[in-house]
């Protein structure tokens, strides 16, 4: 069993315009194990992406206090590629486009990066695995010969993130708004992909703004984040409650004095 733990995490970023450090995460605590699926819900601008990027190791986010532990080992200060090879994966909200590198070539490089030099994946095994996952995600072979994310539609990018998840088979996957911009059919496909990973050796942290995704990937635990902190934790029923009452409702119930960026709920 593997564990991922976030302890009293404070994170700030430098604002591009004002050049000032701004604290985004204000003491986040979270503990999860393989075999579990956790969801983090929260209004826009609350720090969900900041949390996922900081766990992954995006260099723009500075940990000013607290710790992130993977199997008890602190990973703060560890380069992003090393974290990935230790089992972390982040399906990004805005994946980069890279011209000149095909999707297939990239996937092989990613798989081989976590295998020893003398045990690289064979072409046959790679193709078999790729075909299986393409079928599962209802993706065409052509997608793998295209340049990485280049000219992909929003939905194609999301599918491609999940394809990477299935190919790389990490220990912990953070999925940042994998549902945004997806129609219902695509949402079902993506969920099928994630659900196929469920098992004793896999844990996932699913970040979403909406409850809808959680009908398809049913979480064990739901956390609600507001203003850089986790303000409530519960079971799947918490997501349903949010759906009914909105973030403002929960905020008022908890007696929090937080201004929500958008009260569209």
């Amino acid at each position: 069993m593997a564990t991922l733990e976030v302890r009293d995490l404070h994170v700030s970023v430098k604002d591009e315009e004002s050049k000032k450090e701004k604290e985004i995460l204000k003491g986040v605590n979270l503990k999860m194990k393989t075999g579990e699926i956790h969801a983090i819900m929260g209004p826009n601008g609350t720090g969900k992406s900041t949390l996922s990027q900081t766990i992954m190791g995006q260099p723009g986010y500075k940990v000013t206090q607290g710790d992130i532990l993977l199997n008890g080992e602190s990973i703060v200060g560890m380069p992003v590629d090393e974290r990935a090879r230790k089992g972390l994966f982040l399906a990004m909200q805005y994946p980069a486009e890279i011209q000149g590198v095909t999707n297939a070539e990239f996937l092989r490089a990613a798989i081989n990066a976590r295998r020893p030099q003398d045990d690289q994946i064979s072409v046959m095994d790679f193709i078999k695995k790729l075909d299986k996952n393409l079928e599962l995600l209802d993706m065409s072979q052509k997608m793998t010969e295209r340049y990485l994310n280049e000219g992909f539609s929003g939905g194609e990018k999301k599918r491609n993130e999940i394809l990477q998840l299935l190919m790389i088979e990490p220990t912990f996957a953070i999925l940042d708004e994998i549902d945004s911009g997806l129609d219902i059919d695509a949402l079902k496909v993506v969920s099928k992909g994630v659900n196929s990973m469920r098992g004793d050796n896999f844990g996932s942290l699913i970040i979403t703004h909406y409850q809808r995704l959680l009908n398809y990937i049913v979480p064990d635990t739901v956390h609600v984040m507001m203003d850089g902190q986790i303000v409530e934790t519960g079971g799947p029923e918490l997501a349903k409650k949010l759906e009914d009452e909105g973030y403002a409702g929960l905020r008022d119930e908890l007696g929090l004095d937080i201004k929500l960026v958008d009260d569209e709920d």
Partner: protein
Amino acid sequence: MTELAEAKEQLTSASQQHDEPRFLLNQRLFARDLMEKLRLPRMQRFKFHDWPLIADQPLTWVSSNTDLEELAPDDEVIRVTQVGQTTVKIHIPEKLQDEGVVLTDIFTAAKNYPEIFKKNFMTAIKADENLLTAYHMAYLNAGLFLYVPKNVEIKKPIEAEIVQDNTQDQPLISHILVVADQGSKVKFIQHLTTVGKNENPANMMIELIAKDNSEIDFSSLDELGASTHTYFKRRADIGRDAHVEWAVGLMNDGDTVGDMDSELLGECGYANSKMIAVTTLNQEVGVNNRVTNHGKHTIGLINQRGVILENSELIFNGIGQIIHGAHGSKADQQNRVLIMSDKARGDANPILLIDENDVEAGHAASVGPVDPHQMYYLMSRGIPRKQAERMVIRGFLGAVLSAIPAADVRKKLVDILERKLTDGQQYQ
């Protein structure tokens, strides 16, 4: 006797010994006179005036050891190989010869095809432009000539292997003249390499004469050695409705200064000048890539990408000029360089000179490190930094890589690239 008179006498006897036609000797002598008053060309932001670009040597005919070059026998490929001044082999299918295609060394062309040769040779590039063009004309000692007759389409690329011979003390002063007659189509790939370690200048010129409605794709993989100082000049004169595409992989190990020129003379012509360069160690490389729209409704594109490693310097000047009267024309350019170490220096300068109103002109330039967002993405999948860097760079250079028509040349270029990048990364 004055030094000039002596030099001209020497040129005369060398030319006669070489059995050259009189007109060629006259051009040499005229150019030798010009050398007395012309100066080195200038390039914005790049200094090379103390480089040994002119050999202090008479015109001499030497032969090179042609075992140096290994030839893959392949009847399908149209290939010509030159080592130094020695033409090793020209292979051209009979069918094309029957259609009137001519592929010879430059001196045979002057002798056997004087009409067409005289009409085109040194017409795009002119001897009186600067000291190095005059030097080129006066001391020319190698080269190739290709003529593609009207409406003939050569489907397979013509591959020229040019080997500069640094086992001897001889400059290589080489001229490739390609004449694509009306409505013809041709792809030409040259691969430049060096054998030996002696220091020599290389003065390498290419003239493309693209007559009306013709198409020329010219790719070049430049891989000259570290002990060579190179000046290159490549110019295309582009007629009405003619297309010229350049795809140059500038991978020389030595100091290099060069001019790319595309002259859109006729209406509705099209030029696309693509170049990638990788510089390493203490190398200095400067390139002017110029496209000039003279004709109406012409399109001129420039795309230059450079990667500067270690302690090297790379300057890319992109010059897009629209001449008064070139109505409805378009000039667009991109010049981008990646700076990969603290000691690397470089610049990408777009220069737009527009003398007409109803035209479209654009440019983009960037100088900086590899895109951090792309790096983060690749590394977040476990790919180590250096490998990720090479992948991002390959993507950055992708537009030119994919423009090279022959898969084996493309592969060669990618291999050189990997090697240079891997070596360069040791330094970081």
